[in-house]
């Protein structure tokens, strides 16, 4: 008979061994100084604004030079609640299918309740807001991934959350909207009537479709007016810091099975899931390793982006960041990897790509779609369209290894599952065929 106590003891020990007590901050280990956030010419200070809308501890972490930042007990506890440490899988099915000598491992962030890595930073930021005794938090969401992560984090700390959802998504992604509401958050179509900015837009155009930039503006205005805190989903250093829990866990998990990755791969939107997996390895154990960031060819920031100061948000409310960017007004084609449509790239990751510490490649949606199908059919998990970019790169690397008969070890981030994107995949099946 199963001894429950023994099982619990084992689970506890496993968790204790894997779950890190610190996040890792790459700033002091970068090859060059990170250009600081900058205020634009002739305007109010955006850096000053940050101070009024973000929790103090979040700002402190944004500018810290400590290599390791302690994770508070209250956050660790919630990490355990949502299922950390997440599993590390070996993709045996995929390896067999590709007939490759490469060993392929992936960290599965899709195992988290909202289906992606986003909740790792949502929990941290919401906790710091909660510890300032505010009534609630605000944020924006496009397709809904980030919104649901914030809604969950807020419900864990019993804090109110108001999610400004881009009007078109609000109308066309009812499942995501319901998920956010199910967690107890208030979802407001943006532009909305509850902010001055929203009302001014609706006056001119009652059917305004909204945009992520507008939703950010509304979330910030609401936070300012109501004493709420604003939480951010990607790009800024502090978000990347929180996500390093992924790589720190993976490092430990690989150690326990006696493996060391040669190549580390993740997809890139704003950069947080890539940084999450790769930064601990880049900063602490990079010898002989390759790091590969995978983007979308439809949002060609690696091949066509410039390295310069640009706004992280379309509305231009936040401080300028020096990053690889297609320009804040870049309009992406309607690809389905919503998370990769972002015009910019986290400053630290931009710098690492410029310095050639990280390699960057891009794939077209049709190639990514095929890779997603292969992965689903050989491994069972439907990858999020974003994460499928990493899958595509891994397949190519593994096939290359077969040609050269190289026994390399690959580690990639499966940052989310694609069950909530199945309508998108359906549309790809219609467009690109079933194969």
């Amino acid at each position, binding site marked *: 008979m199963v001894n429950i106590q023994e099982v619990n003891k084992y689970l506890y020990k496993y968790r204790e061994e894997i779950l890190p007590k610190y996040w890792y901050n790459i*700033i*002091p*280990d*970068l*090859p*060059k*100084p*990170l*250009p*600081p*956030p*900058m*205020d634009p*010419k*002739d305007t*109010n*200070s955006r*850096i*000053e604004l*940050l*101070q009024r809308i973000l929790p*103090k*501890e979040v*700002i*402190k972490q944004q*500018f*810290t*030079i*400590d290599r390791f930042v302690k994770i508070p007990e209250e956050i660790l506890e919630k990490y355990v609640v949502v299922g950390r440490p997440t599993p590390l899988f070996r993709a045996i099915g995929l390896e067999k299918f590709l007939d490759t000598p490469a060993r392929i491992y992936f960290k599965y962030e899709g195992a988290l309740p909202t289906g992606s890595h986003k909740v790792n930073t949502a929990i941290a930021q919401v906790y710091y807001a909660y510890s300032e005794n505010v009534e609630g938090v605000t944020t924006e969401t496009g397709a809904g991934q980030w919104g649901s992560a914030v809604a969950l984090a807020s419900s864990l700390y019993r804090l109110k959350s108001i999610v400004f959802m881009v009007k078109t998504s609000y109308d066309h992604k009812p499942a995501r909207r319901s998920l956010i509401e199910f967690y107890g958050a208030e979802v407001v179509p943006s532009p909305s009537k509850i902010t001055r900015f929203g009302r001014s837009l609706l006056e001119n155009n009652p059917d305004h479709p909204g945009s992520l930039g507008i939703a950010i503006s509304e979330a910030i205005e609401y936070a300012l007016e109501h004493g709420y805190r604003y939480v951010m989903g990607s790009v800024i250093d502090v978000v990347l810091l929180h996500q390093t829990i992924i790589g720190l866990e993976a490092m430990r998990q690989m150690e326990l099975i006696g493996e060391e990755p040669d190549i580390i791969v993740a997809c890139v939107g704003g950069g947080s899931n890539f940084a999450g997996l790769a930064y601990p390895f880049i900063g602490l154990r990079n010898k002989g390793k390759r790091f590969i960031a995978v983007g979308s060819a439809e949002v060609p920031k690696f091949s066509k982006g410039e390295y310069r*100061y640009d706004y992280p948000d379309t509305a231009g409310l936040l401080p300028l960041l020096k990053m690889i960017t297609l320009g804040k007004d870049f309009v992406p084609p309607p690809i389905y990897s919503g998370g990769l449509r972002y015009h910019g790239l986290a400053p630290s990751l931009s710098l690492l790509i410029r310095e050639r510490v990280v390699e960057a490649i891009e794939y077209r949606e049709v190639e990514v779609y095929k890779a997603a199908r292969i992965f689903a059919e050989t491994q069972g998990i439907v990858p999020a369209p974003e994460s499928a970019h990493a899958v595509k790169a891994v397949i190519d690397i593994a096939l290359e290894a077969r040609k050269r008969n190289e026994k390399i070890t690959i580690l990639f981030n499966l940052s989310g599952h694609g069950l909530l994107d199945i309508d998108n995949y359906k549309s790809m099946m219609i467009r690109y065929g079933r194969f």
Partner: protein
Amino acid sequence: MEKLLVVYITLGYPSIEKFTQFISQVGDCGASYIEVGIPPSFAKYDGPAIRRSYEYVKSLGINAENVLKIVAKNSSAPVIALTYLDDYVNNLDEFAEKMLSTGIEYVLLPDLLIDYVDMYRDIVNTLHKYGIKTTMFVSSSTPDKLIAEASKHSKPFLYFGLRPATGIPLPVDPVILVTRARKLVQNKLVVGFGLSIKDIEKVVKAGADGIAVGTAIIEAIEKSDVEKALELVKELRGVLDDL
């Protein structure tokens, strides 16, 4: 050893007369060095108050070279000229000659180690060739290795900025930052960027040889007058001397 107090003022602010009064008296009020900001075309790493002062001075249409000559003649402490390399990177020799002819000994370029890090040694060498000394500016996001290396080219001290922009009191931990920098450099270490009075004791105990003050001076002049700013310098000198 006396703790260093580095006092910032924008060139020609708030008027040539008041500015001249300020720089001729500030040394006696306790300033060890006067840092004079030459209005750049874009003060990208400065905070709102200093940016306002630049815009104001520009609107007065002053001639920087002429005012710098006044500085050399009237200053009551050694002068460090602060300006952005952005404006001079293509005519560095001309810039060095200009500084030399106005009698400026030290130059601080806040963007040197951020935007021109690949060529900073060449730039420093060029300036040194003309006899201009460089006051290097590093910040909390400068990697350890570069802080240690840049410090060797820095005179009369290494300027360590605690925050990403001047004058905005973002919550950073000055003690952690200064302790780290202290371990990396042999040079005198001056700490600036949004320090409050209660921070001063902490950063000095953590190993700083002095502090720099800028935004508070400009704000004192904005709200009141140069007399008020001079009083603030005296007060800061008092705090430093009591430690």
